[in-house]
């Protein structure tokens, strides 16, 4: 089968709203979004704190953080697998090859990204902001909320970038989800499987969906970065 016929078949799958295709898309979006939101919820406060505090070993933490940004997905998959597999410390929870397992792995993958973006956003704020907040009598908590509001575009970029990472990765989803049809099969794992089976239509259809998501995500990031500050 040549590429063109495959593309045409893929297009047909998408336009006829093939349930298999859309179920995979839905699973993907759901898992990636949950993981990204959790990573943002944990990572944004961490990034803000990292930007505002001075402690011994802060440089080392930043170095580790930057390294973690480039962590291969399969390494995270491997580590979490070791914890979740039946003989692992958390094996009793039975989370391996479940959507929750994938969420845990993708959360760890996206966490450094969320921390990094939030750190950069707060670091980039005008230093006079912090004095002004204190001088107006804010408590720590009120001040943090104001900082978050002033860094809102950078913080939103943290969420978007985290989602961009979780939706597009394949290693974690494959190793921790196991590509179980109707359960943990995501767009990326499905593409890998269908391609190895030589069934290009479904792979291409999902690839197109993934591209569309990537376009939306990056469009969002692009727009956020161009907002006048």
């Amino acid at each position, binding site marked *: 089968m040549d590429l063109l016929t495959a593309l045409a078949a893929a297009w047909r799958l998408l336009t006829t709203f093939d349930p298999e295709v859309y179920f995979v898309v839905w699973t993907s979006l759901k898992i990636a979004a949950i993981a990204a939101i959790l990573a943002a919820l944990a990572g944004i406060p961490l990034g803000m704190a990292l930007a505002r505090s001075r402690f011994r070993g802060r440089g080392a933490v930043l170095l580790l953080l930057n390294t973690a940004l480039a962590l291969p997905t399969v390494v995270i998959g491997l580590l979490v697998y070791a914890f979740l597999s039946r003989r692992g410390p958390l094996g009793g929870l039975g989370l391996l090859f479940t959507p929750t397992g994938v969420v845990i792995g993708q959360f760890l993958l996206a966490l450094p990204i969320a921390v990094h973006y939030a750190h950069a956003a707060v670091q980039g704020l*005008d230093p*006079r*902001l912090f*004095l*002004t907040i*204190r*001088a*107006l*009598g*804010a*408590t720590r908590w*009120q001040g943090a909320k*104001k900082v978050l*509001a*002033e860094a809102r575009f950078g913080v939103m970029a943290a969420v978007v970038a985290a989602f961009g990472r979780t939706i597009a990765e394949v290693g974690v989803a494959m190793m921790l989800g196991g590509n179980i049809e109707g359960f943990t099969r995501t767009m990326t794992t499905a593409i890998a499987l269908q391609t190895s089976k030589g069934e290009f239509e479904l792979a291409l259809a999902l690839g197109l969906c993934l591209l569309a998501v990537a376009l939306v995500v990056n469009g969002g990031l692009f727009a956020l970065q161009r907002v006048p*500050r």
Partner: protein
Amino acid sequence: MTPAYRLEEVGFAYGPREVLGVRHLEIPAGQVAALVGPNGSGKSTLLHLLAFLAAPSRGALFFFGERIAPDRVPAPGRRTALLPQNPYLFHASVRANVLWGLKIRGVPPTIREERSRYALALVGLSGQEERYALALSGGEAQRLALARLIALEPEVILLDEPTNHLDVETRLRVEQALLAWVRERGTTVVLATHEVAQAYRLGAAVWQLDAGQLRAGEPDNVFRGRLVPGEPGVFDTGRVRLRVHPPPAPTACLRIGPREIILSREAPETSALNCLAGRVVRVELVAGDEIQATLDCGEPVVTVITQESWHRLGLAVGQPAVASFKASAIRPC
């Protein structure tokens, strides 16, 4: 009356280097007090101590008679409010900028709106509520920052160079808004400025800070301008020309103490090369028994003379007078 602040042997150090030393300072309540000094003289540091944004490294600080223990410094911004040099405006509307400080204090929404309207009116920003704060001009931004403080109705307002970078007209407007506020509410204001004239215009009490040390006595008159090329010993401020001897190295700033100036009704026949004619704009009793008279000679000129001399001259506010001083009494800053 209990002073708003009393400082005894207070010092502040960054690491081993002490950047501020105040042996004794009492700031009266319900008035405008001014701290004068060049940039880097420790004015901002002192204001931060008074705003409780920093704790002194030594000495005792009393706030309305109450000793402030180093481990129990009041939360900044509750009873005091500081307008930092170059204040930051939030990325929001003018209105939202004023409301935030009230919101975090739990002021009910209707009162918030009322106070915000009042404060914005006081600084002349009524009708600008919905504008984006960052779209304001420099003068408007400064006035907004002031309104943001005023709306909090603190007991003490601390202002760090509040009219820096403002044009003359805006500066006067801000000053007037401030004075109106103080009179109405009995708020204590501490103003840090490098402008001696402004300090005297606003301050009932004026102190001078020099290299981190609070100096007793009144600040010098400071003239900013340039030496006129080709005319040795002539300094032009744009409003008055001064004679200075010996001609100093090129400088943009000259100073003379208020006690080195002779006040007279008419231009005297003396050896003094500088005779500035003007009008008395302000008269005040200082240090108990001396008269501090401010003349507007194009530049403001502050003089201090004894009560006896003052009564002999029989001058009053609004009358013409002449300030004379020797060319050799002027020093570069």
